[in-house]
């Protein structure tokens, strides 16, 4: 770092930013881009962040900035960074500063937090002085070296920065207490002179880390600074130190100075005007006394804040006429690309979407299921079946349909531990696997032979009915053309003599509540044919559900092709998947409760017949 001592920042200055304050960091990078320098932030410190980096824009490009857990670690990787921007809260800012002061590569620390206890502020200050380091703040927006480096939010928006000529160096050294008036003064100086060469807002607290004089002594040495503007405040004696320095010749460049808070003399000590540090404890600390002392020392002091612009203009024009202040070539300024979100809001851009969603929306105050807010779903006592209706079929089912779906879910929820899906779940759980893995083995078992008969029954019975096959013809067709048993027909033990109670209930409900049971009636005709051959070739529970779902959707106004689409998409099977998952979860939890060991299938239950052609 070969910059002279009187400069805290130049175009190569690199900084570590403490706290993942995305807006402030992005504003700094925008500034870097506008003035045509490299990104000034090399690392972010955020102890509570689990991420290793964050992305920011530099112009239109995205860059990655690493995130560290501590300043020490960040400084180790980036020894070239000599500035720490301490954006920690008032609770942690002190600890962050004290850590950074002990890091040899860090020379300047800016502290933004307001409300740091005075004892902490004094301790930071004295420690920094002992080490010859620079503290800016606390309670400040920071400062700016135009054309070189901007501390965080100093100068406000990019538009204002350019209007106030903070994007390239001028000839004035500025020191203020507050950040708000810092902006104002930059603007005044840009309008009445050629802008500032460097500006620091020392902060509004009683004990700033560095004060006006510290920075003005730097400006005195900086050949770029031709004159200085000091905006002081009632309270404290920091301005008097500047008066002393003018008197004893440590400051020789012209100084224009004004202390605000002349009002306070009219109200004694009763009214707190402005900042925490802004309270005169003694006569010498009043704005009037300090203005008088500065005037007497040789500073140019206006009669009122209102006369400040004229005074600045006067000094500038005089120095300009003498040739001490050269003309400035205004640099080209690249535009900052507009943020996409902002441009969208302003209706300036559009882009095609990649995904479409027609069932739910989480963008408003409350997420909705097919337009119905979740709170309504609860308040209006929607059943699980109603929610299925909204999210699967985008419909509010009539009560008869909701009740039917409810029955379906209940009926298919479980069928004991021996069926293949439940068995797989149990075996996986016993292998020590988690909930997701275990139930997934069960769900993956669902298919044409296990649980898949709902789809199949619906498909074939519907097809037969539509083609006008009579039941005998259909049974024949399945045997000769499709060459498969009819899905939904047949049961291991149940028969015409020993009917399946579940089926009886479903049929009874449909007969009583469905507007029409056309396909069920057809399937029952088919059952008559099949049971005449063999007693247990009954319409089973899968078959009943399959054909009744077709009847249900028909009654809800679905066309035949639409119902085919649903079947092909797996929507019918979905009822089984959903219902049976309840059972799988039950079996998984049961295994965990029992804490059974790994299952190994007994060898005597396996026929070994290993004959291979291997030599």
């Amino acid at each position, binding site marked *: 770092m070969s910059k002279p001592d009187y400069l805290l920042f130049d175009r190569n200055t690199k900084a570590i930013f403490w706290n993942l304050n995305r807006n402030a960091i992005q504003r700094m990078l925008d500034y870097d881009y506008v003035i045509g320098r490299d990104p000034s932030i090399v690392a972010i410190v955020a102890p509570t962040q689990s991420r290793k980096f964050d992305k920011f824009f530099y112009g239109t490009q995205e860059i990655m900035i690493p995130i560290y857990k501590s300043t020490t670690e960040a400084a180790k990787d980036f020894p070239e960074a000599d500035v720490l921007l301490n954006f920690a809260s008032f609770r942690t800012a002190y600890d962050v500063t004290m850590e950074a002061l002990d890091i040899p590569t860090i020379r300047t620390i800016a502290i933004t937090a307001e409300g740091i206890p*005075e*004892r902490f502020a004094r301790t930071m200050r004295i420690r920094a002085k002992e080490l010859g380091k620079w503290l800016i703040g606390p309670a400040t927006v920071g400062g700016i070296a135009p054309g070189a480096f901007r501390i965080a939010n100093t100068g*406000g928006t990019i538009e204002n920065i350019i209007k106030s000529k903070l994007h390239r160096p001028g000839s004035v050294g500025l020191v203020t207490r*507050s950040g*708000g*008036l810092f902006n104002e003064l930059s603007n005044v100086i840009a309008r009445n002179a050629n802008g500032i060469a460097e500006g620091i807002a020392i902060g509004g607290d009683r004990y700033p880390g560095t004060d006006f004089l510290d920075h003005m002594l730097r400006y005195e040495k900086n050949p770029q600074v031709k004159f200085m503007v000091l905006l002081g405040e009632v309270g404290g004696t920091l301005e008097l130190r500047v008066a002393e320095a003018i008197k004893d010749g440590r400051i020789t460049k012209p100084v224009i100075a004004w202390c605000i808070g*002349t009002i306070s003399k009219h109200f004694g000590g009763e009214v707190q005007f402005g900042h925490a540090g802004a309270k005169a404890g003694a006569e010498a600390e009043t704005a009037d006394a300090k203005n008088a002392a500065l005037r007497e020392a040789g500073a140019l002091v206006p009669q009122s804040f209102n006369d400040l612009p004229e005074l600045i203009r006067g000094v500038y024009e005089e120095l300009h006429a003498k040739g001490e202040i050269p003309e400035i070539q205004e640099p080209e300024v690249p535009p900052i690309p507009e943020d996409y979100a902002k441009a969208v809001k302003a209706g300036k851009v559009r882009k095609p979407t990649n995904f479409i969603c027609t069932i739910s929306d989480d963008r408003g105050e409350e997420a909705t299921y097919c337009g119905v807010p979740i709170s309504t779903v609860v308040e209006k006592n929607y059943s699980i079946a109603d929610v299925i209706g909204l999210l699967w079929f985008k419909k509010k089912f009539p009560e008869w349909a909701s009740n039917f779906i409810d029955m379906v879910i209940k009926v298919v929820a479980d069928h004991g531990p021996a069926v293949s899906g439940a068995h797989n779940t149990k075996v996986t759980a016993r292998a020590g696997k988690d909930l997701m893995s275990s139930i997934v083995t069960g769900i993956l078992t669902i298919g044409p032979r296990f649980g898949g008969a709902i789809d199949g029954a619906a498909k074939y019975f519907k097809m037969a009915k539509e083609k006008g096959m009579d039941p005998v013809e259909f049974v024949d067709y399945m045997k000769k053309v499709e060459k498969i048993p009819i899905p939904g027909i047949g049961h291991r033990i149940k028969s015409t003599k020993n009917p399946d109670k579940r089926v009886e209930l479903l049929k009874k409900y449909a007969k009583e509540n469905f507007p029409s049971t056309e396909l069920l009636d057809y399937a029952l005709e088919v059952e008559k044919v099949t049971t005449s051959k063999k007693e247990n070739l009954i319409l089973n529970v899968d078959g009943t559900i399959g054909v009744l779902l077709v009847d249900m959707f028909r009654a809800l106004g679905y066309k035949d092709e639409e119902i085919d689409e649903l079947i092909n998409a797996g929507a019918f099977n979905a009822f089984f998947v959903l219902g049976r998952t309840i059972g799988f979860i039950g079996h998984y939890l049961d295994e965990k409760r029992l804490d059974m060991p790994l299952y190994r299938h007994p060898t005597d239950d396996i026929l070994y017949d290993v004959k291979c052609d291997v030599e």
Partner: protein
Amino acid sequence: MAQRGIREYDGKRILAQNWQDYFGNDFEYDFKSILITPETDLDKIPEEYPWVKETPLVAKPDMLFGKRGKLGLIFFKKEKPGDVTWEDAKEWIKQKMSEEVEINGVKGRLTHFLVEPFVPHKPEEEYYVAITTDEDEDVIYMSAFGGIEVEENWDKVVEVRIPITASDEEIKKIIKENVPAEIKDKEKFADFVYRLYKLFRDLHFAYLEINPLVMVGNKVYPLDFVGRVDDTAQFVAGRKWGELEFPAGFGRDLTPEEKYIKEMDEKSGASLKLTILNPEGRVWTLVAGGGASVVYADTVADLGYVKELANYGEYSGNPSRTETREYVKTVFDLMTRNKHPEGDKILIIGGAIANFTDVAKTFDGIIDAMKEYADKLKDVGVKIYVRRGGPNYEIGLKRIKEAAEELGLPIEVYGPETHMTEIVRKALKEGQEAA
């Protein structure tokens, strides 16, 4: 705010509550203090504090102001010191609460009193100790000549400066070497001051004074206590402070409007401040920003209108539209209560160039309030001057101008091309010439 005065009662309570940690068993402090407020049921005191019936008492107001002895506001004798009973103290407090008094030129009522046992002692037993802060050092004042005459005896006060980074050993040494010659038990006194200083530091006091301090053997009697703490240290020292109230100065009771804004400020992330200077004043301000608000007040005074300055206040930190509206309505309500005998009132809506406060948004809040108060503002007669810069200022200025014109309120509007305080000059000079 940072340094806040605390009641004598709270000072002593803090001392007592932290006594074990700082003074252990090497010193004894028998904390017996009662804070009496207008809400206190005086008849229940003897039940709660039976000792009031057993010992002579002292009663005094506890409202941050000093020199109570000289003001005749320390009640410790009827005929001779130490003959004040609970009944006497009760009557005295009731009496004092009912009358208006003037303290240092400020009129007001006494509301808070401290009642303690009377401690008989000789004047030569009254020591003095005070601790305050300076930039890089803390300063301890010690004297063997305490009591109400301490200022007259200031040449006998020893001042020692302790660097804030000094180690415990260094602190002990500095204090020990500087104990005033007239103190009887120097070692004991030095030890006490050292411990008191440690408490001062750890508990983030900004000022602490015990005068008089009476020490009898191991027994410590802090007969008066004045303290200020750094309220920003709440997160560090709050537990040791216990429940601590920061009362306003005597006679500086907030008006309901000021109180309303203060409460809003406490709840908000933004900053909202309001002080009524002269409700009859002609010049009212609505200024954004802590620094800018001072500059506007200065300028009004510079131009000779300080007597007409009605309020001081500021809003900043990006307040919401609602917060701005409520703030502005409060000011409008105050300024439309009566007409000014010399003509239209002047409303300065000012501010510097905002960093990130959305000017259009805050102005929308002002416009909302303007609409609600349009009739009243017209009745009283108000001329509005606006100057502001920052994000969306063009939109904000345009909207406020249109809104005011639509409502029939005279308005002049300026942006950052006009110097911040120029509107004050326009309002007070040009405006008055034209009228």
